[in-house]
């Protein structure tokens, strides 16, 4: 029997995506496009709106686990990457998993698996870097940080930072995906937010910013200067939110209330979507 080409609309969540897989097998439809962010796709194909049913998502999840214990983790991570048309790539991978079994995941060179594996590697790289490059500011006892990642890393950073700062209260805001990770007293939550303003830091914070900047500048050995190596290890796109690369105003406490900067741009961090001109973003 021929599978009909269909466009799938879903709510953009991982469970929602698994339900799409479920519906596609139930109705014998081949999803030629996925629409998870409410943007209308114009086409002559029929459109199916998929409702997220956790029972269906669970069934697909368990069936993946049966094919290979690695599969759910790979599909879940793949869903967090910034791969273009990730749903289609993941759908193709799931189909191949059902048809051929776990062997596809053992061969990284497989044409269906490779794009997903490559995207996951990109995600893992970003994750590894951000574990170190995230900078918190002390906002009167609460630690706050902002990041601008390409992939949706917050769900994966959660465990690391919740264990590291178990006795603190902290938040991390993801500017790209407008998501906020909140943690206090052993509980963490991940919530989407529309707008976000960082409060002004306390006095002591400026002291530590200065100490860190001093340390950062001193520790480099002048005779060994190597900006090519530095740029490879720390691409410029990360530097917008890192303390040591902020302009001078970031290091001096505002003297009068009038000198306070606008709420959306705390102390010189460029507002989302407006990269500062002195820091060109890295290619790629």
């Amino acid at each position: 029997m021929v599978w009909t080409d269909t466009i799938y609309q879903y709510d953009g969540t991982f469970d929602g995506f698994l339900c799409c897989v479920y519906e596609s097998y139930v109705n014998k439809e081949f999803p030629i496009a996925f629409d998870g962010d409410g943007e209308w796709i114009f086409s002559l194909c029929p459109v199916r709106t998929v409702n997220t049913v956790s029972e269906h998502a669970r069934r697909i999840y368990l069936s993946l686990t049966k094919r290979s214990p690695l599969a759910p983790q790979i599909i879940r991570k793949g869903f967090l990457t910034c791969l273009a048309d990730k749903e289609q790539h993941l759908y193709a991978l799931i189909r191949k998993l059902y048809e051929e079994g776990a062997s596809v995941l053992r061969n990284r060179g497989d044409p269906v698996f490779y794009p997903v594996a490559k995207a996951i590697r990109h995600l893992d790289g970003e994750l590894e870097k951000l574990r170190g490059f995230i900078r918190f500011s002390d906002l009167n006892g609460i630690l706050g940080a902002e990041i601008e990642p390409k992939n949706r890393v917050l769900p994966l950073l959660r465990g690391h930072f919740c264990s590291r700062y178990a006795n603190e209260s902290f938040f991390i805001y993801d500017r790209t995906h407008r998501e906020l990770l909140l943690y206090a007293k052993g509980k963490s939550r991940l919530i989407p937010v529309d707008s976000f303003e960082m409060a002004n830091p306390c006095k002591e914070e400026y002291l530590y910013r200065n100490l860190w900047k001093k340390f950062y500048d001193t520790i480099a050995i002048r005779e060994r200067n190597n900006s090519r190596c530095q740029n490879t290890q720390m691409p410029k796109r990360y530097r917008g939110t890192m303390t040591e690369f902020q302009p001078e105003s970031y290091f001096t406490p505002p003297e009068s209330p009038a000198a306070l900067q606008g709420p959306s741009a705390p102390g010189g961090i460029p507002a989302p979507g407006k990269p500062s001109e002195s820091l060109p973003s890295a290619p790629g």
Partner: protein
Amino acid sequence: MDLLEKLAILSDAAKYDAACTSSGARRGYEPGKIGNTSSSIAGCCHSFSADGRCITLLKVLMTNCCAFDCQYCINRRSNDVRRTAFTPKELAELTIGFYRRNYIEGLFLSSGVLRNPDYTTELMIRSLRILREEYRFNGYIHAKAIPGTSPELTYQLGLLADRMSVNIELPSEAGLQKLAPDKTKSAILRPMGLIRDKVQENKAELVKYKHTPRFAPAGQSTQLIVGATRDSDRHILNLTQSLYDKYRLKRVFYSAYVPVVESSLLPALDTKPPLLREHRLYQADWLLRFYGFRAEELLTKQQPDFNTALDPKCNWAISHLEQFPVEIMRADYEMLLRVPGIGPVGAKRILSARRTDTLTYENLKRLGVVLKRAQYFITCGGKMREGLRFTPETMLAQLEAMERGLLPPHEAQQLSLFDAVG
């Protein structure tokens, strides 16, 4: 003197120490404490300084006052620099302040010798104790064992730290006598042996008693200065090999000598640090630790120094052409690792992928093999790569030409009209 000034002086004095890793210890969250150690095996880099080196720990000296007079060292007693010291409390507060903001992964504490080694070590122990017990710090600590300290104190220090290190600095005894008259080979090797034995004892105890206090769980490391004395690469690499074998070191670091003090016994002040040589030594070091090579294989009496124009692995392969080409579909893991352009990750992927698929050159690329190097040394399904033309004689020139583009401009040699074209 305020904290900012102290930090500037004491981090400036510590920066010539190359060791800055946070690997080897895995500790999750513990109730009532702040911090964990990195979940990844490679540790965690928090920034990269202008010289491209990773910053992962707050690298400072307890004090830069020193009773020793080592010629190569910026803190030697006869050098006229400003001297200061952290109080244990200051240091602990600074570390926690940086750690909370995710600036660092932990503390790297070294020190000049104030009064005598025992007194200095006691000062370091007091700081670490405040950090661990009062501030409940659960992150990474790297502590230097000062040569000449009594064993009991070194042991105490190791109970507070994750990793310990004793710097050998000068790779030969002659160099040591000439440039570091206050140190002796035995004074350096004694704490190293002690740390090795205690780590082993501790491992055995941990099997019996779960709550035994842990002694330096991330092992120990050391540093060798390259270029301050006339020791050959072969000498340095053989020393490295025996350090890994005999003292079970986790890492040996190399530090290209940066002339910081004028001395008739040392290279002149305008000498450039031998960065490329340092780089080649690190490459060889990786071959020893992860690729199953031995120091004797890489350098011989006839060739005591590394070829600067070619990396050590290519260099080895070129002089052992009788073992190549290697058939990708059949070679074992150990042999795959010896092919230039294939590393541990690539080799494992090949083993896994060839169970289900016949590999092609296109596949190999996707598996992360660096074909521009590997192509000269492999066959895929019995075939050489299409379009590749070379003879054993032109191979060296072809590989060198490729490598030239990867070197920093001032290290690369000027192209000559008479170079063989690849």
